[in-house]
């Protein structure tokens, strides 16, 4: 769309650090999250979960529980018909098991009762007869032909014959002659890596309040990244029309990809339907860990060849991903992203999905990319070490740029990788002397970003203020950036604009808040809704002036005659036009609907300094700097926030976070005490350096920034630790016992 192409301009408000509109509510405790809503006559719902990693459900006897005083309703998988669509069926089966429990924590039944105590007691009275089956939680074991089979018949047509039944997908990307490439190399390094599954770790557990009425309508209040998608999933699972289900997004206490799919919501709706009363369900932290969104666990082989002067001649990777007990295509994203930062003549990546008895994978910030890029960036670093080359110079020498054929196929347009690398090179961090015992690591990162479906309605109020309705839950300040873009385009102060997130009955469809899409795609829709409102306001001004509407132009928040021939009239402000709107044809509103493309890929570079305690194996990150291309930072504070937050999550992934399964197939660490996310005293200040290389696909040049920042920390820290202890680490997390073992092994 030519209309949406980037046009260079001087910004007046975009790029300023205004106060976010939801700030006061959030610092006073007034903001309402998933668990904060109540309804008259509300029941409390609780879920019974499988204690087994893999078991056939022989029978479920709910009679004793149902007879308990205060128990109002019970549901099991039998209350839902399994959708025909395989993807939807998996989502439904994950919400409530059908014939098999597929992982420790898989939901088996749910109770609605007058309070939490009764509901909890009732769960104990539900008798489930299990036939325990052999299980497998390790990806490399699960890939073997003789492994216990998680589900039969799930392999896609992409899987070659002769593979084990748990291998469900294969994909391959790349170009060029690998053999010739490796032949040109002076040094080749081939290594195998493993990364543990990690959890998004949002502090707010999943929560919802469902209310079904006897005439078949329902309301759902829920913490979600995408209430429109939740409506789609829930209405299909409950066999109701979308219009009859109104979903309202609460404030959301973190998601990072983990709140993009349903768990409790269809169950709460069904319980409400059965009992005729509102039902509130809130997960415990234990349930969040056992039954919701971890990432894939992976096992990856990488081989890279390099010349003496640092030119990469060929890159190859074979990456096995496990998305838990269901089909999962995240390996496609990893296999495409692995070598994206490099301009390569010969590259090949192969991705596989392998089923294990683990929870169903949910997206986590750049899903699939951190693991793949960790493995590639580790090998690049080892080559630099081996050849005595500067790792930043090598990345500059091989960097993908405009005109590079990407490892996943297309030719890159304007991308900011080289500028980002140059910024890192110039930054004082890169040349700062290291103290005794410290080492420095760096890594590139990459994510695709996307746009997607978006509606915006912009209402011009008669007092000269503007209300915006959009459909994307605000996960980190997007209401502020949307209001800023509207204010910029309209030419009115930011304070005159209020943006709200509309429920599913009040606005057209909006894709989920994911893919780093909101500031980009809702931004496009907002700017164009403003342009629509401006066209209408110019027309009203033309009517009031008695001139042709083509003779009116909009600048600085007011209609002006377009030239001397249009007539001499003083500018008519938005407020002036709005005040007379009832007399000139009625209320004024701008609208825009789009399925946005052109998001533009995003690159980042992270630098870190670490100190490893050789006695304990504990790593302290002492300095950390993030460099990332934001296209245009609409609200720099929240762009920095995305860069810092992603880095912190990546540091946790690198050093501590992991799903630990016992030999019994049960998750050993389903709590924040044993699944250790970074706390304030674990981290150094994280410096964020924003680069602005305009995205040609957005009118203000915006690129999504939310996901790329989690990608580089894994390798940046691994590279630093490996240099510090003098041996290459090949497994995440680099927890103290693993680092200690590596130190001892090297000695």
């Amino acid at each position: 769309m030519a209309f949406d192409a980037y046009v260079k301009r001087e910004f007046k408000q975009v790029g300023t650090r205004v106060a976010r509109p939801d700030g006061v509510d959030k610092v006073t405790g007034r903001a309402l999250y998933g668990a904060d809503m109540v309804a008259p006559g509300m029941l409390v719902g609780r879920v019974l979960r499988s204690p087994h990693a893999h078991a056939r459900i022989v029978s479920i006897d709910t009679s004793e529980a149902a007879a308990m005083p205060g128990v109002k309703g019970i549901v099991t998988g039998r209350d839902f018909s399994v959708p025909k669509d395989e993807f939807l069926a998996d989502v439904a089966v994950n919400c409530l098991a059908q014939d098999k429990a597929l992982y420790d924590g898989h939901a088996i039944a749910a109770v609605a009762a007058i309070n939490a105590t009764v509901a909890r007691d009732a769960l104990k009275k539900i008798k489930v007869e299990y036939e325990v089956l052999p299980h497998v939680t390790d990806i490399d074991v699960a890939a073997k032909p003789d492994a216990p089979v998680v589900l039969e018949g799930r392999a896609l047509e992409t899987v070659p014959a002769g593979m084990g039944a748990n291998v469900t997908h294969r994909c391959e990307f790349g170009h060029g002659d690998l053999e010739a490439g490796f032949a040109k190399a002076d040094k080749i390094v081939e290594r195998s890596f493993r990364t543990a599954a990690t959890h998004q770790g949002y502090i707010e557990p999943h929560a919802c309040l469902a209310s079904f009425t006897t005439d078949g309508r329902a309301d759902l209040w829920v913490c979600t990244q995408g209430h429109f998608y939740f409506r789609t999933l829930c209405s299909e699972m409950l066999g109701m029309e979308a219009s009859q289900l109104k979903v309202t997004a609460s404030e959301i206490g973190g998601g990072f990809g983990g709140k993009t799919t349903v768990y409790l919501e269809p169950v709460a709706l069904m319980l409400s339907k059965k009992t005729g009363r509102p039902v509130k369900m809130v997960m415990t932290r234990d349930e969040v860990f056992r039954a919701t969104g971890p990432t894939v666990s992976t096992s990856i082989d990488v081989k890279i060849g390099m010349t003496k002067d640092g030119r990469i001649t060929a890159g190859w990777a074979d990456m096995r991903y496990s998305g838990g007990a269901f089909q999962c295509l995240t390996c496609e994203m990893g296999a495409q992203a692995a070598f994206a930062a490099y301009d390569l003549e010969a590259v090949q990546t192969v991705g596989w999905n392998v089923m294990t008895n683990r929870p169903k994978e949910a997206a986590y910030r750049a899903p699939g990319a951190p693991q793949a890029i960790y493995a590639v960036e580790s090998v690049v670093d080892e080559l630099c070490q081996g050849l005595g080359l500067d790792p930043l110079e090598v990345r500059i020498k091989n960097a993908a740029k405009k005109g590079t054929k990407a490892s996943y196929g297309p030719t890159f347009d304007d991308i900011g990788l080289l500028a980002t690398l140059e910024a890192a090179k110039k930054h004082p961090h890169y040349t700062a002397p290291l103290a005794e015992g410290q080492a420095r690591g760096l890594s590139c990162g990459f994510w695709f970003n996307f746009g997607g479906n978006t509606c915006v309605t912009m209402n011009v109020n008669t007092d000269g203020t503007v209300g915006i309705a959009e459909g994307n839950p605000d996960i980190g300040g997007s209401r502020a950036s949307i209001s800023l873009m509207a204010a910029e385009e309209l030419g009115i102060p930011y304070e005159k604009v209020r943006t709200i997130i509309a429920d599913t009955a009040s606005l057209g469809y909006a894709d989920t808040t994911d893919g780093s899409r909101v500031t980009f795609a809702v931004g496009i829709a907002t700017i164009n809704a403003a342009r629509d409102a401006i066209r209408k306001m110019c027309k009203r001004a033309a009517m009031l002036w008695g001139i042709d509407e083509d003779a009116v132009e909009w600048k600085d928040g007011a209609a002006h005659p377009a030239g001397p021939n249009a007539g001499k009239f003083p500018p008519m402000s938005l407020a002036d036009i709005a005040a007379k709107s009832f007399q000139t044809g009625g209320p004024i509103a701008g609208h825009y609907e789009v399925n946005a493309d052109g998001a533009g890929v995003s690159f980042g570079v992270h630098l870190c300094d670490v100190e490893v305690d050789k006695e304990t194996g504990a790593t302290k990150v002492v300095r950390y700097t993030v460099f990332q291309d934001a296209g245009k930072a609409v609200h720099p504070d929240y762009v920095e926030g995305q860069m810092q937050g992603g880095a912190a999550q990546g540091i946790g992934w690198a050093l501590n976070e992991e799903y630990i399964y016992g030999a019994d197939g049960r998750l050993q660490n389903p709590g924040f005490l044993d699944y250790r996310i970074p706390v304030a005293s674990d981290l150094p200040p994280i410096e964020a350096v924003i680069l602005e290389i305009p995205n040609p696909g957005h009118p203000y040049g915006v690129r999504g920034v939310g996901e790329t920042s989690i990608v580089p920390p894994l390798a940046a820290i691994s590279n630093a630790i490996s240099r510090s202890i003098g041996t290459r680490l090949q497994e995440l997390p680099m927890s103290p016992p693993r680092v200690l073992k590596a130190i001892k092994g090297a000695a």
Partner: protein
Amino acid sequence: MVKVLLWGSLRAHTDGQAEVEVEASTFKEVLDKLAEAYPGLRPQIERGVSMAIDGRIYREAWFTRISPESEVVVMPYMTGG
């Protein structure tokens, strides 16, 4: 005719060709013609694909124009977190 570049594993359904030619002038025509000429691609097309046209990635934009000299790359359907 436009040249369409396929990702590696799709070559199994195009007699090993990484690049195929189809008579198409939009996103949707490319997919329709691919499915017609190479039925083995159908399951993947039904699961969803993205398409990079001159370096810009589109997800569902059926009527996006494609000119004979455009660079067209079929990619898996983009997802995110």
